[in-house]
């Protein structure tokens, strides 16, 4: 074996060992700092993990773009919703007076709030864009109570990592977000839109707006919030119903 090829073999070997241990360390660090999404397994896990980790390093505190009032869309698109259940129709007939938002899981004080309970809490407005994964979008003013207000009232346990939220649509469609988005100042339990009540088509009486993620994370008809430190035991453990039907859990892209 010549001098050159031996040197080359040694450097290649060292580089391979360094690379492998570097990857192992990176994986440990990523897990430690919450940079691994619940749907990190499978064929598309590496890309999804890279995206989520990069976003969490870059965007934890950044604010979604807000627009001037003049840019509010004249013709927003509500998108189609599943036909309302009988239960939803009953709520709609009674003006959503009986609608309850249950807050449970790893909290000091489990809550059951009516829409007017939520409306009487602190509220804010934001003019942000709804962005559908299909490609279309619209800008609207959203009026609501920051999710963090409700979570503070319930008193989150320190180990909480995800907020799971459920809709009355599609037989209980559910999603979850990490604490960076759950405690984000623009994440609203929305009950008003463009100076009026939030129309049913756009998610009324209660929609969770997550403006830094695609529209499918902004579930309509919210009835249930659960604080948890792990997605194990929620469906298939992939974080939400979206990965179970083939869509990414993290939709900030």
């Amino acid at each position, binding site marked *: 074996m010549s001098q050159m090829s031996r040197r080359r073999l040694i450097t290649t070997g060292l580089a391979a060992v360094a690379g492998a241990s570097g990857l192992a360390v990176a994986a440990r660090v990523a897990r430690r700092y919450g940079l691994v999404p619940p749907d990190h397994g499978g064929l598309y896990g590496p890309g*999804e993990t890279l995206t989520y980790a990069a*976003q969490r390093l870059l965007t934890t505190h950044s604010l979604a773009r807000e627009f001037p009032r003049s*840019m509010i*869309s004249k013709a927003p698109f509500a998108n189609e919703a599943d036909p309302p259940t009988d239960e939803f129709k009953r709520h709609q007939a009674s003006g959503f007076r009986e609608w309850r938002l249950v807050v449970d899981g790893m909290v000091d004080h489990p809550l059951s709030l009516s829409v007017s309970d939520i409306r009487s809490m602190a509220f804010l407005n934001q003019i942000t864009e709804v*962005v559908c994964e299909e*490609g279309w979008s619209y800008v609207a003013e959203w009026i609501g109570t920051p999710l963090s207000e409700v979570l503070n009232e319930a008193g989150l346990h320190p180990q909480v990592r995800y907020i799971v939220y459920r809709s009355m649509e599609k037989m209980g469609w559910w999603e979850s977000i990490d604490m960076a988005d759950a405690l984000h100042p623009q994440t609203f339990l929305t009950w008003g839109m463009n100076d009026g009540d939030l129309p049913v088509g756009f998610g009324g009486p209660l929609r969770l707006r997550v403006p830094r993620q695609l529209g499918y994370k902004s579930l309509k008809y919210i009835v249930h919030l659960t604080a948890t430190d792990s997605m194990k035991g929620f469906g298939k453990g992939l974080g939400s119903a979206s990965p179970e039907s083939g869509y990414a859990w993290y939709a*900030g892209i």
Partner: protein
Amino acid sequence: MTFPCGSWYAPAVATVVSPPQTKASRHTALVRVTHWLTFVAFMALLITGAEIVISHPRFYWGETGNVNMHPLFTIPIPASRDTVPTGYGYVMPDQNGWSRYLHFQSAWLLVLTGAVYLIAGLWTGHFRRNLWPNAGQRNLRAYTSRMGAYLRRAPPDASEVHSYNALQKAAYLSVIFVLVPLVIWTGLALSPAFNSAFPWGVNLLGGRQSARTLHFFVSAALVLFLVVHVVMVAMNGFRNRMRGMITGRVTSREEQP
């Protein structure tokens, strides 16, 4: 030692030995590996990008756009959503879930491969040596005369087995330094989370829907490059050029097309 094609040299005794050839080094390992990784990433991005477009084959200009608004243009195909009025009365199957996962994973492959290529290319002088126009190529004539030769379908110069002509360099440099950076930028401008951290990225492009429309057009330009690139390879010695990009070595004797 090289034997130019059409050599004046003829052996005194007829032999059955094929004309002598040398195998010259053409592409470095770096160029070959990054070329094929980019090819894999680009094909995946193209297929999944088309799938994503099918869910809303309408394009707009400005910040917002949806089926209640006038499109800039539409692609006349059925959509994979029944909310899009295409006039076909037929809804294609929804492939967006895996398409989106694969699109972003392939985008990572493209970006990481591109970063390695860019850094190594600058470090080793690849851009300066192989892609930057040399002294004889920095005039309009170098471009017009080569274009004329292409249009006449004249066989390539012997030197073109080992180096690029002015038009090739212009094409490769625009893909590497203009189109790929643009397609990455317009793609990132479609990420709501990325836009929250870097709002100027999308604002400079004229809004979200403008960014999406530009992403589509830049992708179309890259597809056009791919088609011309493959046609040129096929017309100018497919086997030799494929061998060059796979093994790194080419024969100096051009194959006859």
